[in-house]
């Protein structure tokens, strides 16, 4: 191969810890050719970001490069001085961060920040620099660049901010851009156009890109070549289509199988799952526990939302007039028992607000919600009995904040049940906790450990177990997998489907990811700005959307053409 811009060989990065050295990168060799877009893909903890940081000598102390070589344009970067790297950073290598809102300085105007980068990395001055800044902002497809120059980051959307970050990154005509999850923090609806902008610019100026992401869709769409990593080790490499369609390693194959497809509905994600004897026994115990509360096994109407509206009042400044935002705008839908109903939409579309309103965490300004024939909204919900309240549970988005860190997993799950004295005679709190842990695919001993000792996916299982402990009929799932890695997401989604099938649960499933919703749901509601755009079954939504917004959402999803 000729014309190699960046090459790392046998790169090993070590973080010394109390329990010995932790290898964040273990023997990683990658090559980036000039003008190529190279993806680093892997799940959290794969060390993919560390590669980019190592190149720019940005590894946080006490981590250090223990072994290996980094060559950039034929020159070794190992052991170079800080001054040397200052020359590289910004001028030859641009860096794009994950969260544009924190990557920009909140107390500086956009114009100043772009100009600062131009002053620091080029010889342009005064008028010329200003023209260059305008030009950069125009090239990153920012509307009204002159106005934007005067604005502060908080006055702009995340997508616009990320475009500004791009402008800063390319200001000095670098040879390489390291993009660390550049669209992960952005809304689904803008991810695609933002990503397109970056890739078009880089292709135009023959800038190489190191694209670090967990999103296989993004990789498949933009990268020429891809490296798959896991636990700091190299797994597989090759031209993108080859790796995605004909993965050679088991890990890659599993990873690809776990990616939810938009194009085709599968009953289950094909990921390796083993159910032990103890676990299947536990599921029977839990089933008996559920059957005792004998709720009917039919497809009747469970939930009815009628013209639900709510308005948020926010103060704008100390003396300013109150601002109103529409949370929900005359939303009406029904949900039958045992149905998995999905709600999709971008952030601010009111999808979580709807769920919170059903659970009684958010008051409606008008409209009504009826659950099992009981009104949840009349007289401020006076008709809600404890039974009704407890039969509606929730699985939250962030598994790191949804469990009480000062209680063991078992206490988290059973404390409320014990307090309400809802345990049957034949089942003690301890047994319930252990069986629930087993039935969601954890060890029985998990009940005695604290949430901090678990990974995100395991915590989400505990959160599911907690919801299950109440023998609920209805579970509101608020983006339950968006904080999880794809293989963990696949396992969790499979688990939730199993629960629906076994315990006749009704799930209201909120997500921003159309592909996930398509795999999970019987019907889908598309929401925008607090109002429903359309309700239909998944096939119809994906293949024959009737609303423009749905079409744009589908267009924004990265296409993953897999011969699966």
């Amino acid at each position: 191969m000729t014309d190699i811009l960046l090459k790392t060989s046998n790169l090993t990065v070590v973080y010394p810890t109390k329990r010995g050295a932790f290898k964040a990168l273990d023997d990683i060799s990658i090559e980036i050719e000039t003008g190529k877009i190279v993806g680093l893909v892997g799940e959290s903890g794969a060390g993919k970001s560390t590669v980019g940081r190592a190149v720019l000598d940005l590894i946080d102390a006490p981590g250090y490069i223990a072994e290996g070589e980094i060559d950039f344009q034929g020159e070794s970067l190992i052991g170079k001085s800080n001054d040397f790297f200052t020359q590289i950073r910004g001028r030859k290598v641009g860096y794009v961060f994950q969260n544009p809102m924190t990557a920009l300085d909140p107390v500086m105007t956009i114009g100043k920040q772009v100009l600062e980068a131009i002053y620091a990395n080029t010889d342009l001055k005064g008028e010329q620099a200003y023209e260059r800044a305008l030009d950069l902002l125009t090239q990153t497809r920012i509307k009204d660049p002159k106005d934007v120059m005067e604005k502060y980051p908080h006055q702009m959307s995340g997508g616009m901010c990320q475009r500004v970050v791009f402008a800063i990154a390319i200001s000095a005509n670098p040879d390489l851009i390291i993009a660390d999850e550049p669209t992960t923090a952005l809304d689904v609806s803008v991810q695609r156009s933002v990503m397109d902008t970056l890739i078009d610019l880089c292709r135009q100026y023959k800038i190489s890109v190191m694209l670090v992401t967990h999103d296989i869709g993004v990789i498949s769409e933009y990268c020429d070549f891809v490296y798959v990593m896991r636990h700091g080790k190299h797994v597989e490499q090759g031209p993108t289509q080859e790796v995605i369609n004909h993965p050679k390693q088991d890990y890659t194959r599993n990873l690809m199988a776990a990616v939810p497809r938009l194009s085709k509905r599968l009953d289950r994600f094909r990921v390796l799952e083993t159910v032990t004897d103890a676990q299947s026994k536990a599921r029977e115990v839990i089933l008996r526990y559920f059957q005792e509360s004998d709720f009917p096994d039919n497809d009747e109407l469970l939930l009815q939302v009628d013209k639900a509206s709510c308005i948020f009042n926010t103060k704008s400044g100390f003396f300013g007039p109150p601002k109103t935002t529409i949370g929900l705008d005359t939303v009406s839908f029904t949900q039958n028992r045992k149905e998995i109903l999905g709600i999709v939409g971008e952030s601010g579309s009111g999808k979580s607000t709807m769920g919170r309103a059903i659970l009684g965490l958010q008051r409606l300004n008008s409209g009504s919600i009826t659950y099992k024939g009981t009104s949840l909204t009349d007289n401020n919900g006076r008709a809600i009995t404890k039974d009704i309240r407890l039969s509606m549970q929730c699985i939250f988005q962030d598994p790191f904040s949804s469990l009480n860190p000062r209680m063991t997993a078992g206490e988290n799950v059973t404390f409320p049940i014990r307090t309400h004295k809802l345990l049957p005679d034949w089942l003690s709190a301890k047994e319930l906790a252990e069986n629930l842990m087993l039935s969601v695919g954890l060890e029985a001993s998990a009940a005695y450990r604290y949430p901090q000792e678990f990974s995100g996916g395991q915590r989400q299982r505990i959160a599911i177990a907690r919801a299950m402990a109440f023998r609920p009929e209805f579970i509101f799932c608020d983006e339950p997998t968006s904080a999880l890695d794809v293989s963990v997401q696949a396992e969790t989604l499979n688990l939730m489907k199993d629960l629906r099938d076994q315990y006749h649960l009704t799930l209201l499933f909120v997500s921003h990811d159309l592909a996930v919703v398509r795999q999970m749901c019987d019907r889908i509601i598309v929401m925008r700005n607090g109002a429903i755009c359309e309700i239909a079954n998944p096939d119809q939504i994906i293949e024959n959307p009737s609303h423009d917004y749905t079409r744009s959402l589908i267009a924004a999803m990265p296409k993953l053409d897999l011969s699966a």
Partner: protein
Amino acid sequence: MTDSKIKDFFRDVIFGDPMTALGFVGVVLFLLVALFAPIIAPQNPYDLGAISIMDGQLAPGESLMDGTIAIFGTDEQGRDILSTIIYGLRISLFVAITASTIGTAIGIYLGLISAYYGGVVDSIVMRLVDVKMSFPGILLALMLLALMGQGVEKVILALIIGIWASKARVTRSAALGEIRKEYMRAAQLAGLSANQIILRYLLPNSIAPVIVMLPMIISGAIAAEATLSFLGVGVPITEPSLGMLIANGFDYLLTGYWWISILPGVVLVVLVLCINVVADRIREYANPALRHETM
């Protein structure tokens, strides 16, 4: 905390740093001396039968009438200064620890209900805090004691009034951060009562910042009590604390009997210093930014 965690804590945090280790040993020694004062002290300085006016104002190292040596000298009544210090330490520590614990507990409780209920409760509690914080602490205590008169329990009450407010504020801000987390929503959906949520969910997750401050609060209370006693509004003359001893000897300072006032003062300074050294280290350890590396 499990046993091994406690062991780790002592090994890494307390004995990991020589100054802290020294301070910790100092604190333990002071506590033991205070606890076993009647056994350790050479005489009971407040038993009139045990002291003799003939021994009055002996310099450190001189012998008493009965032949024992007064290491720290005696005061004008013939009391052994070392003994008065040991007994004084007892009073000082008792007052400070009691007041700090009760004051902090009240502060934590008010902070929690303020954060949990919000609205009117929050406004009332926080305005009370503002009112309290707008008085200079020592002035407030002086006023209170001037109104209530002397007495150990009154000093404790005055110190509690001085302590609770800032702790309520700290707890409230920690609790507000926790209340926004999703496990609080989960607790609500579990139909738990407000008391259960506050006690089992909010309290354990919000008290860390205040608990870490506790040693510092205690050392502050020791100093504050000494100040009040020195100014003559603190503990009664029959139960003299370290501050009281300093005040008693103050009159003799210029006549050359320096030890009566200076020695209790030195002990007070060393005591507060020891606690502060340990407290500082614990605070450093509890700082999440620094702690991250040790975990």
